[in-house]
């Protein structure tokens, strides 16, 4: 028994509530036994600099398309039941939520694998950019120059 979920992929300014997303994904099936969640949050330190604020921007349509591709490939390749991916944009303070990936499977192993793959794939393929504000000013982060 599977139920299609609404809004499994979201890019949004507002914060999300992890419990709500977990309860949403549980509705996909009564046969979920393991749910693995990755939550990325704003760290204070980056390469020795003290960060005061983060700012994310995305390429609309393409970013959502890439997240949907990641979700579908995770379900297909890892045999999980469902995946939710949410990324925030705009201003984000230290300690605040940035990105959430929820992978629900019958067993934990595939859920761990799918979740870890999905966040790496998101960083690799999804057009989202981070700007860090430090005492020295603002800089766009280029993780892979």
């Amino acid at each position: 028994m599977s139920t299609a979920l609404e809004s499994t992929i979201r890019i949004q300014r507002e914060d999300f509530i992890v419990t709500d997303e977990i309860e949403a994904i549980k509705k996909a099936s009564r046969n979920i036994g393991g749910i693995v969640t990755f939550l990325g949050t704003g760290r204070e330190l980056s390469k020795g600099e003290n960060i005061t604020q983060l700012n994310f921007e995305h390429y609309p349509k393409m970013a959502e398309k890439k997240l949907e591709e990641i979700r579908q490939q995770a379900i297909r390749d890892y045999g999980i039941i469902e995946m939710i991916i949410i990324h925030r944009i705009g201003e984000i303070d230290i300690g605040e939520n940035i990105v959430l990936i929820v992978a629900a499977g019958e067993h934990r192993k595939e859920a761990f694998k799918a979740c870890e793959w999905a966040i790496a794939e998101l960083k690799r393929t999804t057009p989202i950019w981070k700007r860090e504000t430090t005492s020295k000013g603002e800089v766009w982060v280029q993780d892979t120059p």
Partner: protein
Amino acid sequence: MITVKYFASLRSLAGKEEDLFNLGSETTLERLSEEISKTAPKIGEMMRGKKVMISVNHEVVVPGAVIRDGDEVALLPPFSGGC
């Protein structure tokens, strides 16, 4: 018309969010980079030197790709989403 979108550091470099170019019904990224060089030589150079990823209609393309009238081209600095 071809729409060109600039993101993140490239938007700062271009000084704008997007450009419109009329380059006929079919052209190349090479030709587009030369047009861009007229107002933003550094960006044109980055395109030719493969220092920037390029998407056409929301899919990443190889440098030699053909582009057509109506396409949306985006210049994408290295991604840094995720956390």
